[in-house]
């Protein structure tokens, strides 16, 4: 468990900023306490100061996880967002996509969102913009990347992919063993 290096922080923040934009600042600078990011087993955890101190009592090799896992660094030092970060990112999401009830299951199985399953989309979503995927009942389902801008979405045919799947809450079941 160690704090992130500046480079790591930058990479991670760039990724997160794709989804929540300047709201990222709110994650870093929280009024309700000190929260920080810690790297442990290549995974980045978002921890409150209190829990971090508690976790410091546990040896590194025994520590499984602490706080909330936001994602992991790949071997090529890129950051990969995990679904566990959804709880923290969803409230701050700038661009959202709502998917129809029929397409929910498909998305939760790890598939992309087709236009036919697209129920609603935030205007001015640009292409390859990180989006948070919601169900029509406003339950956050996961992350995605807009494959088309909002305008393109209008024109495209119903079978075309509009949101690339990145992470979904189905992973809690599918990747139960790897999620921390």
């Amino acid at each position, binding site marked *: 468990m160690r704090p992130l290096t500046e480079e790591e*922080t930058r990479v991670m923040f760039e990724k997160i900023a794709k989804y929540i934009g300047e709201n990222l600042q709110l994650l870093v600078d929280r009024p309700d306490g000190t929260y920080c990011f810690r790297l442990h087993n290549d995974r980045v955890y978002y921890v409150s100061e209190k829990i971090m101190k508690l976790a410091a009592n546990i040896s590194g090799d025994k520590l499984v996880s602490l706080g909330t896992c936001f994602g992991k660094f790949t071997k090529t030092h890129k950051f990969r967002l995990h679904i566990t970060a959804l709880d923290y990112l969803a409230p701050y999401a700038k661009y959202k996509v709502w998917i129809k009830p029929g*397409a929910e299951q498909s998305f939760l199985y790890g*598939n992309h969102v087709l236009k036919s399953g697209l129920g609603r989309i*935030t205007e001015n979503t640009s292409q390859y913009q990180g989006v948070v995927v919601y169900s029509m009942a406003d339950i956050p389902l996961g992350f995605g990347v807009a*494959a088309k801008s909002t305008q393109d979405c209008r024109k495209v045919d119903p079978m075309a992919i509009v949101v690339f799947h990145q992470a979904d809450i189905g992973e809690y079941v599918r*990747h139960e063993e790897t999620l921390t």
Partner: protein
Amino acid sequence: MWRSSHGKMSKETYRKFLHISTSGLAQEREEAKAKKEKSRTGNTSLLEKMGVVDFHVKAVPGTEVPGHKNWVVSKFGRVLPVLHLKNQHKRNIIKYDPSKYCHNLKKIGEDFTNATPISNLTWELEGGNDPMSKKRRGEFSDFHSPPKKMITVRKDESSTASLAVRLRPSRVMESLSSTQQQAAQKTPCDLITLPKSPQVPDSESQKLKHVFFQTSGLETTRNRNNLSDDDIDSEDELRLMIAREEKERAIWSSVNKSEDDHFEVVRDDFKSDVHKLHSLSGLGIKNNVSCLDSEDVLRNDSDCDSGDTDEIIAMKKNVRKVKNSTEFSQMEKSIHKKSLKNRKNHEPSDDRIKVHKGKTNIELAISQEVKPLGCKSPSDFSSSENADSISESPESEDDEEYNAMMRNCARVNLTLGDLEQLAGSDLEAPKEDTESDGQETTTKCDRASKSCRTPCSLHTGRQCIHPGEIVASLLKEDNTHGKQKPKANNLKPKFQAFKGIGCLYGKESVKKSMKEIVASNNNTKDQNCLKPEDPGGIFMELGPPYANGSSGELTPFQHAKAANDPTHIQPQKSQDHKVVSPNSSEERSGNPVSSLLPLTGKKSLSLGAKTPKIGSEEDCCHRTAKTGEGSRKRPDLSSRTAPETWPEAASRRDTQGSKTDPALSVKSPSSVNAKDKHAEDNQKRLAALAARQQAREAQKQLVHDALANVDGHPEDKPTHIIFGSDSDSETEEASTQEQSHLGMEPVKESVGRASGKLFDSSDDEESGSEDDSNRFRIKPQFEGRAGQKLMHLQSHFGTDDRFRMDSRFLESDSEEEQEEINEKKTAEEEELAAEKLKALNVVQSVLHINFSNSVSKGSGAAKKFKDIIRYDPTRHDHATYERKRDDKPKESKAKRKKKREETEKLPEVSKEMYYNIATDLKDIFQTTKDASAKEDAVPWNEDCGGEKPEEVHDPAALTTGAEQPGGFTFSFFDADSKDVKEETYSVETLKPGKIAWQGAPRFQDSSSEEDNVTEETDETKPSPGEVSLPEKETTRFFFFSKNDERLHGSALFWRGVGSNISSSSWEARTNNLRMDCQKKHKDAKRRVKPKS
């Protein structure tokens, strides 16, 4: 590979299936035929009756239906009409016989050329993009509906593919892959029916992979899942996906038709209805439906996080607040808090609430309806409460509604007096009936129920005061359960009759809760809600409300609950029967309990208030203890507590007991005949147990009292020391024990002190006692880490009084330590803060925005604040920070005011100086007009200046004759001084305008007399321009004439038409100039060179 094998398999299986099915089908057909024939034969008679010919008999295609000319039996036995169509081109009439195949082919299929295209047959519905019009057009946004569409798409695809096969195999592959992907995503089972993939060139291996990748949705997910765990970067993945997508799009773009949007585009600040709902609910304006929804949510996701549940509960609370009085909501708050996690617990608690409301035997009835056997066996009864909760969890919604309904109803609050009255009235009921009824009804039922049965049945008609009866009346309304309802009716009152012991119960509980609970039922309710899980707890908690609200009715339930074990039922009964009577005898004779508790008995006088409390505490203990024990204890408690606090009640109870007892005793033999002996044994055992328990309690009480005397109330102690008294020795022992335990101070000292104290005077003694009390207090200076140090030091010094470690020694240490800790903390905090700053910097760099101000400001301000000097007005040296206050501001204020006034005041102007305006513009214009009109007819006064005044005055006289006499003070308005001033200004402002206006007429057409006028008026300040104006008499025309004086100066500005001289001269001049320039340039160069 896989597909082909699959295809083969499917074919084989299909063949097999065909084989089987054909054989089977043949059989089936034959059977069906037989059946049909049968039915026909049956039907024919009917048909014949109705006058219909049976043509089925000769169902050979082509045969005419007998009796009907143009009807033919067709291939499959149907009757079809023969058509006679008139040919358009030829004159003849075509006969179309549907039974003949050739006719089908030829005759009708002729005029395809003229057929209207399908597009003409269909039409488009006008309309926008709103969902209704979409639906009208047959476009449904539902995701599930598209399979049809998809199929068509696939068909299109296949067709396009077949076309494109020759052209571009790769494209075809892609299109297929896309289709397959879609198919996989939508209908995995459709894979078999997919168009066969054309043979794929080897070069397209990657695409082939894609095909496989996408053929099965599950596989893809798995693959991707693996990917996600692998170290392939998400970016790379994304790039791949994007590339793929773009390829697909390239294809789609050809096929692409802009379809209608099935999705809506929302703004950034979009909030969906769900949120609105929540917010609404937050305001407490929620309707029931939403409430139910929320409940459903709560039920559905049991593991939703606490925040959400809190919200939901808050919503609920609000809703209920709106509905109900505050007490209910409060009560429910407690419930909700308890039952956050599991809904089931919540339900029972709700049930209980209902019970407390005193309307609730409906619930019981329900439980009985659900489980008709529930009322038969007490054991079932005991679980009935729990069963209620379980059985009613599906009906929870109903319960909710019921709750809501019942909350609006009035609550029946029964006081003790009411209960007594009721009990009395109940007991008046004849007792013979009880026996017979009891025997009639199931023997398994509670003895209590038997005894009460009749009173209730008698009562139902009479009064509706009793909650049970109210419930009964309520129950009558939904009278669907013929048999069970009377039972329910019977059940309720049967508890009334049991008032004998029920009262005991009630009184115990009442006594327990006398001081707190009786006043408010809510408290008791809350108590009840506290421990919904524990059946014992329920039993205990249910006590008070029953006592308050409906004790008589519900006590049997307590019994039932007490008899959780089916094996215990009979013994208990017997015990109850038999113990009750002894009880009364015991009470009369004298309390065994009181004898057992001599100390308490003695102290009961002095601590009169205390003992009942203790008793109640004990009650609590007993009740919380196992139900069996509780039942056992009942008699004891009643006997013990009665004499102390309830003398009158005891007497009354005696009478009641005597009344009820016979009934019970009469009944017991009938019900318990068989197990009499066993019951006796059990009873003995129970009695022994009870005795033991009592002994233990007595001991406890002893210790309790002793301890209470020791540390709690030193003033209670007798002032005189009695040597060898038990209490003293006890306290001594206790103190020594404590000393040894605590190890705070050496034992010696205390002993010495004690010895000294013994022989000292009373004053010393008192102080000693105080010391004593002080000695065993927790010393704050020895607490914590610093305290430990101190303690260590103290132990070094020994018992020397001089080196006693006071709290004074503590502070410095603690301060240091605190500082250390603080330093540590601050170091950590600083680290974190630094990290945070770093992170923020990174954020800034990432987002390319500048927001650090707000964040860094806060921290910076906090840091700065330490250095800032705090101004203390009491300190003298801080006077330097004070800004000296002068009287200036005041003065300045006054001054300012004055100044303002001054400024507001208009400057006084001497009336001596003024402009005399003899004319106004109007006159001037008039005159000019006149002049222009006259066209020089009137010879104006150019040369004669003396006439001017007259002339000027004339028009003035015309306009403002009244002012004329007043001399030269001319004004448009009144002759005020102000106006005069204004006039002066106005005159000034007007003048330049006049001049400007005059500029034009100079060149054009205007009379010069105006100039003269102005000259005259501006005698004081004659403008030079005006003066210099040439004044000549000319005949003026609008058009320029030759040698017009107006054009004299203008010759400079234009060139004559035929003058070439100027151009040549210009050239010469330019040449000269150029030469000069060049020369000068050279000179300059020459001059510069030698210098350099």
